[in-house]
C-alpha cells in the first residue's frame, strides 16, 4: 500500500456560470509537506473548502479518500472529526479571549457539566510548549503579535487530533523572524508525522519547506512534482502557463534632479507622547522609485500614513512639496498637495467593498467628475472606464461590487482611484501583498509607466526582492528611525538586513 494521507479524485465544483474546479486530482502522502500553488482564482481555496466540509458532500462531484477510507463530509465538524484542520489566511481567533480559552473554544474540557478550567490551563500549557511558544495561557490573544497568533491557530488545530493540517497563506502577515519560527515548527510537525498542505504565494518558502508541489491553474491540476525537480522559475511558469523571464521588470529611466517632496527632521508621537518616528529626513525625486525597507513594526507605514495626514497625535518637522513648505493635517490636505497613499490593507483602508468599481474609482477625486457641484454619471463611468482599462482590470463590468473581485483586481481599483487624483507622489504600502504572480507583474509595469510620466513613487515593502528589484534608491528603517540609504547599484539583501536589524548607519 502506498501511504497516501489524502486523495481527492476527479473533483468538479461549479458555481452559477463558472466551473471553479474541473476534474482536479490531488494526492498527498503521509507525513509530507505538500505545497499547493496557483494564481488567485486558480481554485486552491475552493478545493480546500471542499476538503474541510465548507462545501458539503453533494455540492461537488468526485471523491475524497482519507487514510484509505472514502469520506463524505456534510459540514466542518465532520471534517475536523476526521482529522482535517484548516488555518485560514484571516485568523479566526477571538481577540478578547485568552489563549487557553481560544485553544479549547468549542470543545472545552469538562468535569461533569462544568468547564474544568484547571485542566484547560494545564493542557494549554502543554500544547503551547509543543509548538515552542513560551507564553502564559491566560494572556489575551489580542495582546499578542500577529505572528504569535498564527502559531496559536496551529496549536488550536493540533488540540483537536489533526492528521492533515491545511495552512492557507500562513505567512502573508508575518515578519521574517516569525516566518522562521513557523517554518521551524512545520518541520518539527513533519518529523512527528503530521501531514501538511501548504498554500503560499511565497515561492521561496515553498522551495525551502515543501516535499512536493501541486500546481493548479484555471481549476485544473497542472502537475504534482517532488521538490527536487522544481525551481522557482519552473513553478511560476507552470502557474501562469508561460515563461516569465523576469520577476521584476525594472526599466532604467531618467530621474529628474527636481525634488517633489522633502521631509526634514520629521517626528511622530503617539497619544502617550511616545515617539513612533524619530527625526526622519529624506527626499523623493521626480520620476524616481524610492523603496522603503525594514522589519515589521519599524514604523514604515506609520511614517507615511502620518505624512498623508491619516494619523492623530503630535508631529514635528518640516514637509516641503515642490519646494514649498506645507502643513498636512488630514487626508484632504494631502490629496490637494498631490499625495496618494495606497494602503497595505486594501480591504480595510482602500476600498468600500459594497460599492461598485466606478464609485470606488472616483471616491478620492469626485470633483473631477462633477459639473456645478453635481455628479455627471456618464462622465464618471467614462473616466472610471478609461483608468481601469489602463490598469487592465478584469471584471464582468464596472457595476460589479469590488468585494467580488480578486485581490489583484481590487488592488488595481485602488490604484485607479489614486491615479484619478493625478498624484505627484504615489505611496504604495505593500502593493503586491496577497496578489498572484501575473497581477504582480502588471502592477510593476504600471509603476514603471507612472515613473516615466514623472510621478515620484514610494514603495514600502517587506519583501526584500521586491524592494531590490524595483527601487532606484532604498531607505531602511528600524525602530522609528531611518537607518540606511542605498542606491540601486549598492543595495544588497545583506546590507539592508544589517540596517533593518539596527546595524550601523550607511551613507
Amino acid at each position, binding site marked *: 500500500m502506498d501511504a497516501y494521507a489524502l486523495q481527492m479524485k476527479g473533483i468538479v465544483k461549479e458555481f452559477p456560470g463558472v466551473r471553479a474546479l474541473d476534474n482536479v486530482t490531488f494526492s498527498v502522502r503521509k507525513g509530507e509537506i505538500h505545497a499547493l500553488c496557483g494564481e488567485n482564482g486558480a481554485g486552491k481555496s475552493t478545493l480546500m473548502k471542499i476538503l474541510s466540509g465548507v462545501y458539503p458532500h453533494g455540492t461537488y462531484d468526485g471523491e475524497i479518500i482519507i487514510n484509505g477510507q472514502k469520506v463524505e463530509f456534510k459540514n466542518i465538524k465532520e471534517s475536523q472529526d476526521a482529522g482535517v484542520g484548516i488555518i485560514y489566511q484571516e485568523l479566526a481567533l477571538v481577540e478578547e479571549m485568552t489563549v487557553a480559552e481560544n485553544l479549547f473554544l468549542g470543545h472545552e474540557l469538562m468535569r461533569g457539566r462544568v468547564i474544568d478550567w484547571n485542566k484547560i490551563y494545564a493542557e494549554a500549557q502543554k500544547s503551547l510548549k509543543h509548538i515552542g511558544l513560551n507564553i502564559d495561557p491566560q494572556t489575551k490573544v489580542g495582546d499578542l503579535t500577529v505572528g504569535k497568533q498564527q502559531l496559536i491557530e496551529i496549536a488550536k488545530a493540533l488540540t483537536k487530533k489533526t492528521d492533515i493540517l491545511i495552512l492557507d497563506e500562513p505567512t502573508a502577515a508575518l515578519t521574517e523572524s516569525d516566518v522562521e519560527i513557523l517554518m521551524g515548527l512545520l518541520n518539527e510537525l513533519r518529523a512527528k508525522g503530521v501531514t501538511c498542505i501548504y498554500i503560499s504565494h511565497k515561492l521561496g518558502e515553498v522551495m525551502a519547506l515543501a516535499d512536493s508541489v501541486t500546481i493548479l491553474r484555471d481549476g485544473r491540476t497542472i502537475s504534482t512534482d517532488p521538490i527536487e525537480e522544481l525551481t522557482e522559475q519552473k513553478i511560476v511558469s507552470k502557474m*501562469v*502557463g*508561460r515563461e516569465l*523571464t523576469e520577476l521584476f*521588470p525594472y526599466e532604467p529611466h531618467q530621474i529628474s534632479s527636481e525634488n517633489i517632496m522633502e521631509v526634514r527632521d520629521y517626528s511622530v508621537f503617539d497619544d502617550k507622547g511616545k515617539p513612533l518616528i524619530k527625526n526622519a529626513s529624506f527626499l523623493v525625486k521626480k520620476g524616481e522609485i524610492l523603496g522603503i525597507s525594514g522589519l515589521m513594526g519599524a514604523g514604515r507605514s506609520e511614517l507615511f500614513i502620518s505624512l*498623508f495626514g*491619516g494619523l492623530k497625535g503630535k508631529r514635528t518637522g518640516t514637509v516641503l512639496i515642490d519646494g514649498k513648505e506645507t502643513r498636512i493635517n*488630514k*487626508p*484632504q490636505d*494631502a*490629496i490637494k498637495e498631490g499625495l496618494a*497613499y495606497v*494602503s497595505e490593507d486594501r480591504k*480595510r*483602508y*482602500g*476600498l*468600500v*467593498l*459594497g*460599492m461598485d468599481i466606478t*464609485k470606488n474609482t472616483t*471616491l*478620492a477625486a*469626485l*470633483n473631477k467628475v*462633477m459639473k456645478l*457641484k*453635481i*455628479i*455627471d*454619471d*456618464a*462622465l464618471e*463611468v*467614462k473616466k*472610471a*472606464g478609461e483608468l*481601469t*482599462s489602463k490598469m*487592465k*482590470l*478584469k*471584471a*464582468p*463590468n*464596472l*457595476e460589479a461590487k469590488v468585494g467580488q473581485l480578486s485581490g489583484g483586481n481590487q488592488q488595481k481599483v485602488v490604484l485607479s*482611484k489614486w491615479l484619478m487624483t493625478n498624484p505627484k507622489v504615489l505611496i504604495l504600502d505593500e502593493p503586491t501583498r496577497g496578489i498572484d504572480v*501575473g497581477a504582480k*507583474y*502588471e502592477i510593476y*509595469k504600471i509603476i514603471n509607466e507612472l515613473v516615466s510620466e514623472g510621478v515620484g513613487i514610494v514603495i514600502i515593502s517587506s519583501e526584500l526582492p521586491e524592494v531590490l528589484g524595483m527601487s532606484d534608491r532604498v531607505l531602511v528603517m528600524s525602530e522609528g528611525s531611518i537607518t540606511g540609504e542605498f542606491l540601486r547599484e549598492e543595495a544588497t539583501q545583506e546590507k539592508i538586513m544589517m540596517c533593518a536589524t539596527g546595524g550601523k548607519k550607511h551613507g
Partner: protein
Amino acid sequence: MGKTLAEVERKTQGNRGLSFKFDLQAYTLIIALVLIAVIFSVFTSGEFLSSRNISNLITQMSVIAVLAIGMTLVIVAGHIDLSVGSLVGLTGGIAAILQVWQGWGTFSVVIAAIVIGAVLGLWQGWWVAYRAVPAFIVTLGGMLIFRGILIGLSKGQTVAPMEDSFKQIGNSYFPYIPGYILAVISIGLLVFWTLQNRKKRKQLGLMIPAATLDFGKVGIYAFFILLTTYMLNRYLGIPVPFLIVILFAAVFIFISNKTSFGRSIYALGGNQEAAALSGINIKRSTLWVFITMGGLAGVAGVLLTSRLNAATVSAGNMYELDAIAACVIGGTSLVGGRGKIVGALIGALIMASIDNGMSMMNIQAFWQYIVKGLILIVAVWIDISSKK
C-alpha cells in the same frame, strides 16, 4: 512582454455591458405590495383599492414617509436615530404652542419647527460625530430629552386648535386640472432626462441601453403616475401631504445620487476608514446627516400637528420604529452603506397598507402590531437569504 500578458488575459475588461440587472430586492418589494393590495381588496370587497381609501392611505403614510427619507440617510451612514418620534412630537408641539399660545403666523411657525428640528439634529450629530458617542445612545437620550421638553413646554396639555392655513398643510388637496398638469410635467421631465442621458453617453462613447428598455421604463413610470393621479382625482385630488413627500423624496434622491455629500454618506457607511483616507470629511458628513434628519423630523412634526389639528404630549410616539422598519423593509442594511430612499417609501407604504387594511377589516388593533412585527422579521430574512 506586454503582448504575452495580453494573450493571457481571458476575460474582457472594463466597461462592457449595461445589462438589465435582475434586482431581486426591488421585485420582492413590489410583489409584496401587490400581494397585500390583492389580499385586502378581496377581504374588503374592493373597498381597499377605492379612490377614497387610496387617498387616505397615502395621506396616512406621509408622516412616516418623510421620516423614512431621513432615516435612510442615517442608516446608510451606519448610524441610527431613535429620537425622531420624540422630535416629531416636540417640533409639532412647539409649532402648536407658537401658533395657539403666541399667535405666530403659519409660515413662521413652519420655519421655526423645521429649524428647531435641524438644530436639535445638529446637537445630536455633534455628539455622534465629534464626541464619538454611539448614535444609538445619543438618540436614545434624545428620545427621552425631547419628550421631556415637550411635556414641560406644553405643561402636559393638548394644544389646539390650529389656524385654518396651518390645517390646510395636512388636510387639503391639489385639485383636478393642476393635478394632471403636474403629472404631465413630471412625465415630460422623465422623457427629457432620459433623452439627455442617452445623448451624453453617446457623446462620451459609452454603451447606451436599448431604446426599448429605456423608454419602456419611462412608459411604465408614466402609466403609474397617470394612474395614481386619475385615482386620486376621482376622490378629492392629490393630497398635499403626498406632494410634500414626493417633493422631499425627489430632492433627497437627487442629493444621495448626484452630490458628493450623498456619495460620502454611502462611502462612510460602507467603510469609514477607507472613506476617511480617500479625503472624505467623515465628521462633517455625519453631522449633516443628523441635521437633515432633524429638519425632516420638523417637517413631519408640522404635518402631524396639521393633520390632527392639535399637538398632544404623546404625538409621534414610536414613530422612530415605524420609520426604521420602513427603511429596513425597503432594503436598507443596518450595517450601513446600502439602501435606497425609494425602497424606504415603498416600505412605508407597505406598513401603512397593513394598518389601513386591517382597520378596514375591523381586525383588533393588537393584531396590527403582531403582523407588522412579523413582516419586519420576514423582510429582513428575505433580504439576507436572497444574498446567499
